[in-house]
């Protein structure tokens, strides 16, 4: 009985000590961590909108450039990040093959042509599905239309897709990832077409 009381007492003291250590470490690092996360988000938005001077900027400069160039706007249910010349970055997210995929889709000022795509969070297979983050894959999106030849909104990520005005080449060996990315992009494109009131062609 005496041993049990001591054991409980010991556990309680150890738990309190560990909790205190963690609380103080957390309190100390929190402002830095939050600044990092905010800077990371700004960096992604600025990069997809192709604002120059972002690559080597520290978090303070990033904040400055961001506040200067980007304003947050809302079109109906659609939140966008818009630059002065009218280019917009739209966040999107959806399930990938292994985990959540998150990114931004940027449109040129006509809001019909794709400027670029980034994926800032993805856990797809490195070398296969993970290639969605690679430059060659993302570069294909530049200048593509939000609509196909038949006027239907949506993007195609298929084999030899690059020939279509709204298509890009898929990644060999990563059909699942490509299909899922296509689905999440089409979802956001659907919202864009609806909320930005593109004329029905």
């Amino acid at each position, binding site marked *: 009985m005496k041993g049990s009381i001591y054991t409980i007492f010991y556990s309680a003291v150890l*738990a309190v000590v560990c909790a205190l250590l963690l609380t103080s470490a957390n309190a100390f*690092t929190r402002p830095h961590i939050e600044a990092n996360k905010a800077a990371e988000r700004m960096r992604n938005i600025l990069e997809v909108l192709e604002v120059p001077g972002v690559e080597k900027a520290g978090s303070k400069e990033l904040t400055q450039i961001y506040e200067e160039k980007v304003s947050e706007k809302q079109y109906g249910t659609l939140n966008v990040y818009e630059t002065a010349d009218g280019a917009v970055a739209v966040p999107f997210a959806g399930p990938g093959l292994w985990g959540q995929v998150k990114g931004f889709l940027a449109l040129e000022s006509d809001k019909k042509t794709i400027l670029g795509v980034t994926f800032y969070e993805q856990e797809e297979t490195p070398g296969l599905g993970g290639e969605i983050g690679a430059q060659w894959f993302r570069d294909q999106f530049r200048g593509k239309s939000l609509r196909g030849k038949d006027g239907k909104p949506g993007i195609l990520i298929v084999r030899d897709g690059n020939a279509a005005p709204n298509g890009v080449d898929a990644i060999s060996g990563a059909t699942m990832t490509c299909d899922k990315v296509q689905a999440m992009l089409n979802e956001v494109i659907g919202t864009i077409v609806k909320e930005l009131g593109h004329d029905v062609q």
Partner: protein
Amino acid sequence: MSNSAPPAIGGACGQGLCGGKCKEILREGVWGNNPISIQILGVCSALAVTNKLENSIVMGVALIFVCAMSNLLVSLLRNATPRRIRMIAEVAIIATFVIVFDLFLKAFYFEMSKSLGPYVGLIITNCIVMGRAEAYALRNPPMMAVVDGVANGLGYAAVLVIIGFFRELIGSGKLLDIVVLSDNWYIPNQMMILAPGAFLALGFLIALANYIKPRQEEETK
């Protein structure tokens, strides 16, 4: 597994830092009883994070820190800890230091924290840390436990750095993100940065360590 420490080691702490045992403990951790190449512990993270040299270094530093600090605390508390809950106590201590390290990484080395992903948190379940706490810190004085923690952390770090060196060099032609093998004439072997490369590199390393070690022992006999 009696609770009493061997008197020779227990009493040695008074003289010097750890009674001239430092060198021996260090040599055991890094080479003679290396946690990865000899004991085959901590292999999961050794395979997962070694595709770049920088990752390997940071992961090694993390393990040295966690192993030393948790060994210190476990050793300080060794006479106060009830035997029945000693493992829970060890896990609590280890987890605390791992989370502290993870927080600092996120705060001051954000890029690295992103590329190491969940593997820093997974140090909690690294057999090396728990193994040293159980096998060494519980029955040895604090100073020696710290040295032992550092030694085993170093042993782990050394293996990771060697694997990371070859995987980054062969797999992407770079070292610490600086191009070493120009892509004008070198085609990176991507397999080395994927999982098979990790198994291959670790296998070679363990084979090599086990080839050299018995010969060395024979020579010293």
